[in-house]
């Protein structure tokens, strides 16, 4: 009963993992689309920032508003990329975990096949005994020929099964070695995703620092001409 319960829980967990895995590409595609949208918005504002500011007087509130708006768009883009990287890294982790499970299975299938082969040796020995006993008992009477033929045919099928098991066994070690390599590569890939995440977090901070410095310059330009810069004019509800 406990085994059945444990198996059910495991199957449930496996089903959840499979469902997560199936929805993963869609989640990433949506996040990538969001990144493209946010990047487009930021690009448009960032490329035109200096051109739009240069025509304004130093203390024109539109200048600080324009810089603040570009900074906000930049932050939205950074957040979108960070969300994508987080999800991609999570999925890389799931893929690595799943690969480890497949490797575990590949490492144990050899023992299962060995058990199969061992059982088959007994079975084939049993049939060989049946053939010997029947041959001896029948004393070459032809009435026993059909039964003997049938036994020999079963013996042939078991020989083929033995060959199939040998063929499977011959691929277990190469399969496990390739999977072990795959796990190693996926570990390197997951580490690379984490490095990208860290590098991008750092880059995000630099973008924020740059726009803060750009805003500070605008405020300095205003203050040296006629006092402190005006606060940016409210632009309605913004996301």
């Amino acid at each position: 009963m406990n085994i059945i319960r444990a198996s059910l829980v495991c199957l449930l967990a496996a089903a959840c993992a499979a469902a997560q895995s199936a929805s993963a590409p869609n989640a990433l595609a949506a996040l990538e689309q969001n990144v493209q949208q946010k990047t487009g918005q930021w690009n448009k504002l960032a490329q035109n920032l200096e051109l739009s500011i240069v025509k304004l007087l130093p203390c024109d509130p539109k200048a600080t508003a324009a810089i603040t708006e570009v900074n906000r768009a930049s932050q939205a883009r950074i957040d979108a990329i960070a969300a994508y990287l987080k999800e991609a890294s999570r999925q890389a982790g799931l893929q690595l975990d799943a690969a480890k499970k497949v490797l575990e299975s590949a490492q144990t299938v050899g023992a299962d096949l060995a058990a199969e082969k061992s059982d088959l040796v007994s079975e084939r020995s049993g049939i060989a005994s049946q053939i010997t006993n029947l041959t001896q008992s029948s004393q070459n009477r032809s009435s026993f020929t059909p039964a003997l033929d049938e036994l020999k045919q079963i013996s042939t099928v078991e020989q083929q099964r033995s060959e199939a098991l040998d063929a499977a066994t011959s691929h277990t070690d190469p399969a496990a070695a390739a999977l072990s390599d795959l796990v190693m590569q996926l570990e390197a890939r997951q580490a690379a995703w984490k490095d990208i995440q860290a590098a991008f977090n750092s880059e995000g901070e630099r973008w924020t620092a740059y726009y803060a410095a750009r805003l500070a310059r605008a405020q300095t330009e205003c203050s040296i001409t006629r006092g402190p810069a005006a606060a940016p004019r409210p632009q309605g509800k913004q996301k």
Partner: protein
Amino acid sequence: MTRARMRPWSACLLAAALGLLPAALWMKAQSSRDAYRNAYRAWRETSAGLELDAGSAGETVAAGTAKAVQMASAYVAAHSSALKELAAEQSQNLEWLRANAVQTPPDLASAPEETRFASRESNAVSASIRTFANDPDRSLQQLRQALQREQAALEALKTAIADRQQAESNAVKTVSPAEQARAKALEQYTFLAGAISQAVDLMNQETPAWAAYYPKLADAARNPGAPPPVSVRSVNPVTVAANLPAAGDPSATAARAPITPLPLSRYTGVWNFQAGSKFFGSEPQFVDVSVHEENGYATGTFYARFKLPAGSTGDPVLRFQFSGDFKPTRMQTFSLQTSDGVAGSVQLIPGNAFNELEVNFSTEAKAGKIHQGDFVLVKQ
């Protein structure tokens, strides 16, 4: 409150289940193995001595065979079930390997474009700094300092973009070796899973074989002195047809005219594709075909892997089962169904040499799947 309490509990349960998964699967496999081993032992104990006594014990042996058929059937079913579990697990692994290609990370933030942007801004800021470089005005000095801080921020940004670009480049470098390892594992697993599935198919053939054997043993035990009977499952039906039983032979009812114009052995048995053999269409890497006959009815399995053109993403493996009545024609046509449930037909055409068989199949076309083939196989 309840929800807050449930969350960690659920997480623990999930983690525990995931941790227990290999152990639970092992216990399940062991339990299945124990079940068929017990069934095997019971069958062998029940049927021990049947063959030795067959020549002398007559009806007693005949009675024992009925029980033996049941127990053999129970054993084969239990063993087949355990083997199927193993095959299913490996098929799942194979499917996972097929579905989980390692993707190249997308270019989310173009580092060259961002670097160009930062350089352009930096150049503009530098030009402004130079303009006020020697100006003693205190206000303009303040502005110069603000510009210098902005330039420092831009330089730090350029460094950060370069670092991120390097990290992305490192990630891209992991894709190719990971994909190579996956392709290698996929190739090995295709053979591994295929061979285990073949073992399952062969195991399944044993139920009807034992069901055919024991009645024959019973018949022989009842009539040990009877003249040679004619077997409809003989290795060579032509020979069988040539040795018709004498009149009055009780086994005469089992005799029949040859089904096919050529011996059934020209169709039945295990056939393989040999390198260099003739083929039309996709070139096979290997082909295993197994054909069996029971009372004029054919059943068979087909398992092959084809060489696909470079860059093709199609499935190189094809597996199907076929069945149908043997007809009094040289060429035998049977209906087939692939492991994906696709229908089609297969023709078996004996070659000029006794150990050659041409196999010609076609199925409904399905994207990424081999749907026709024609090649000459050699008997094993």
